[in-house]
């Protein structure tokens, strides 16, 4: 296949970027999208150009490090997939593909397609944990948790922190990310104890970063590689309200 690429190139956060045209011959449908990018980079290096910087690591959809806007969609045209799991068989010979960094004021561009997602870490630091020190834990079977409860907590905990929810949201809201952690922990007896403080503190941190508000468009759920449900956002809002009321 021959593929035409329009890729966002930007030297650093302070320098304006632009879309640059590239052409790539001999793209094989079995290639992953990132392997196509590798092939382009090899070509760029050998022709004396700078390769495109992009984030990636595990290349099996679990580390959450990869992510780009592909033809305007976070992680590309297939739902519930990370960029590394996208394959070139989803494109046709002669296609033009637009590749841009994840969008969002809270995700400043570092270089080319790499963005700074450290705001997510700071949200977790604000309370996305159970306050248990090493050594304090009681016997694991001491507190039974129903199968359904554990499975439901897992569904929320499965978030990989890639940021596609933010990138795809027209408000750049981090509600799905933040709520998934809040819901994961509140669904388990171990995490329930601190839920009141946690939700207030994590939401406050989310507001401090440059994320927008959630207006319930549900676009995030569509792009989420782990299919994290927007019901988590409803749960966060419920817990938030509850905490505000309980606090009084």
């Amino acid at each position, binding site marked *: 296949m021959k593929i035409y690429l329009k890729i966002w190139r930007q030297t650093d956060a302070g320098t304006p970027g632009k879309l640059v045209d590239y052409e790539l011959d001999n793209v094989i449908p079995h*290639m992953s999208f990132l392997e196509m990018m590798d092939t382009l980079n090899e070509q760029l290096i050998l022709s004396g150009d700078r390769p495109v*910087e992009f984030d990636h690591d*595990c290349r099996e959809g679990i*580390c959450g*490090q990869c992510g780009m806007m592909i033809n305007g969609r976070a992680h590309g045209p297939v739902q519930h997939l990370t960029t590394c799991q996208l394959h070139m068989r989803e494109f046709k010979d002669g296609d033009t593909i637009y590749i841009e960094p994840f969008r969002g004021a809270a995700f400043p561009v*570092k270089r080319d397609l790499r963005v700074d997602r450290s705001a997510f870490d700071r949200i977790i630091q604000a309370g996305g944990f*159970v306050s*248990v020190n090493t050594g304090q*834990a009681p016997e694991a079977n001491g507190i039974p948790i129903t199968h359904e409860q554990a499975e439901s907590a897992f569904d929320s905990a499965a978030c990989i922190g890639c940021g596609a929810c933010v990138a795809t949201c027209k408000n750049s809201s981090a509600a799905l990310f933040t709520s998934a952690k809040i819901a994961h922990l509140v669904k388990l007896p171990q995490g329930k104890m601190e839920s009141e403080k946690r939700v207030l503190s994590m939401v406050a941190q989310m507001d401090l970063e440059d994320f927008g508000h959630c207006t319930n468009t549900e676009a995030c759920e569509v792009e989420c590689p782990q299919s994290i449900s927007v019901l988590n956002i409803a749960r966060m809002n419920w817990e938030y309200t509850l905490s505000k009321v309980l606090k009084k």
Partner: protein
Amino acid sequence: MELNAKIPPGPLKDKWSFYKDHARLVNPANRKKLDVIVVGTGLSGSAAAASLGEMGYNVKSFCFQDSARRAHSVAAQGGVNAMKNYKNDGDSVYRMFYDTIKGGDFRSREANVYRLAECSAQLIDQAVAQGVPFGREYGGYLNNRSFGGVQVSRTFYARGQTGQQLLLGSYQALMRQVAAKTVTLYTRHEMLDLVIVDGKARGVIVRNLDTGEIERHSAHTVILATGGFGKIYYLSTLAMGCNASAIWRAHKKGAFMACPSWTQVHPTSLPQSGSYQSKLTLMSESLRNDGRIWVPLHSPENRKPNDIPEEERDYYLERRYPAFGNLAPRDISSRAAKERIDAGFGVGPQLNAVYLDFSKAIKEQGQGKIQEKYGNLFDMYRKITDIDAYQEPMMISPAAHFSMGGLWVDYELMTTIPGLFALGEANFADHGANRLGANSLLQACVDGYFIAPYTISNYLAGEIKTPRLSTDDQAFVAAEVQVRAQLGKLLEINGTKTADQYHKILGKLLYDYCGLSRSSAGLTKAIAEIKKLRADFYKNLKVPGSEDEMNGELEKAGRIADYLEIAELMCQDALTREESCGAHFREEYQTPEGEALRNDEKYCFVSAWQYQGEDQEEILVPEPLHFENVELTVRSYK
């Protein structure tokens, strides 16, 4: 130099208690005066950094990823072993110890392995308390599955994302300490050298990967938790950034490297489909609980798998190893697959795979049950291959996976450099010549949560009077000069080949000559080829850009420069071990049935290697292994 593993006295089951009872402690008031550097934020690194932070030490934590949560522990799928005996199937600490030591083909230390089994139960408690959503039965109690190489069910799991959930637990514990200001986090920082002062590890030189800035950090102790280096084979189940640079540079500063050639080749990975391929995706070994592995009985075979009748299929694991069948340990399963593929019975477009078939399990248990157990794995398989594995068998193939080898450590997990510790996959300790499935998450966690807090304190108790070290110290200056020189050297070559091109050639050399099967002739040839490749690398490498900016190619080139050195030591290590054990299969040493032939008389030792300088042959320092509690038997899974 003679190696002292510092094994505590007393009976096996009391050694760890004895150690804990006698380890020195640091007064809480003194802890904040002591600085600890932890490199790596996978399970062992984040667990250690969080635990030491909780204790009140002043911790600096480094990772090369853009968040601590992305370390490759995240990708472990199947589960974590622990001796809880919840299934009432006869499990015990001794049995778990025995399974692990036998699984490792009797090439690990009894005391270390026993401690691993002993601390395992506590890990499950810790993880559950952190909110790890392990699989549960309908009554609300924790569930288990069985895993390769054992006959009890002791594997705890969170669907097929156990590593992710455990890592999120330790990552969250780490973030809690970052918020509490006991830990300072440096993401996108890569360690490029170790700084030694007065014979002790006192700091690191790191490069900020976003800005290219070189930084110096000093401490009273340095912990390397940098994971494995299976990525040296290029095509592997590891993340693209996994590397050996931190441990290799520590090795060049005096830390011995143990059994570097012992790499686990995982039997159930997706096969290679073309030369552009950048990695091989693992499909959890837990699939072998319900999947049956086979190849066609005849070759060539052009029919689709579902059209091949039962009697024309060769379930070779069930045939060769009836007692364990599809659950034979990884080294044995991988070798058996390679044997069939090499004999011309491989399947798939490249004839490089075997079938993993779920039709019997689906017929017996229903698709719903299989979906519940492995749903995300089947989804992943479909995403990558576009094949529905509920309808036709998966195609799998062996792939480089886990480094049993690593920095030599004693019972305290300290390397041969005082004050330098190595945890998790970065060390050689518990797995011997072959790691059992679901033991790697366990080892990483146990090292980080339960061992490091005792042994690091024991070391730091002797450092209370050591003042903080200025990074203007001559040792830091010299290390930085060296690091800058190496970066400059890579950039100056300005040749015609990319770093990846070298990595691919190196990977193929290692697969061919230092992979699933090895021979004296092959290894000798590989050593010569690697030397040539290394010379070519420093003549023809091309790295664009400069060192004082973000430069992904420069990062890659630095890692591959190290790989080109470590690869030679791997071959040297494999060449000098004239026996077959675990993952190390020497063609010259096998039984008439093609099983590994160990030589306990001559090779019952750990090969620790001491660096001698650029282009000098390393010196082998054996650490003899003493078995007092188990009998060395031929490892049979028949």
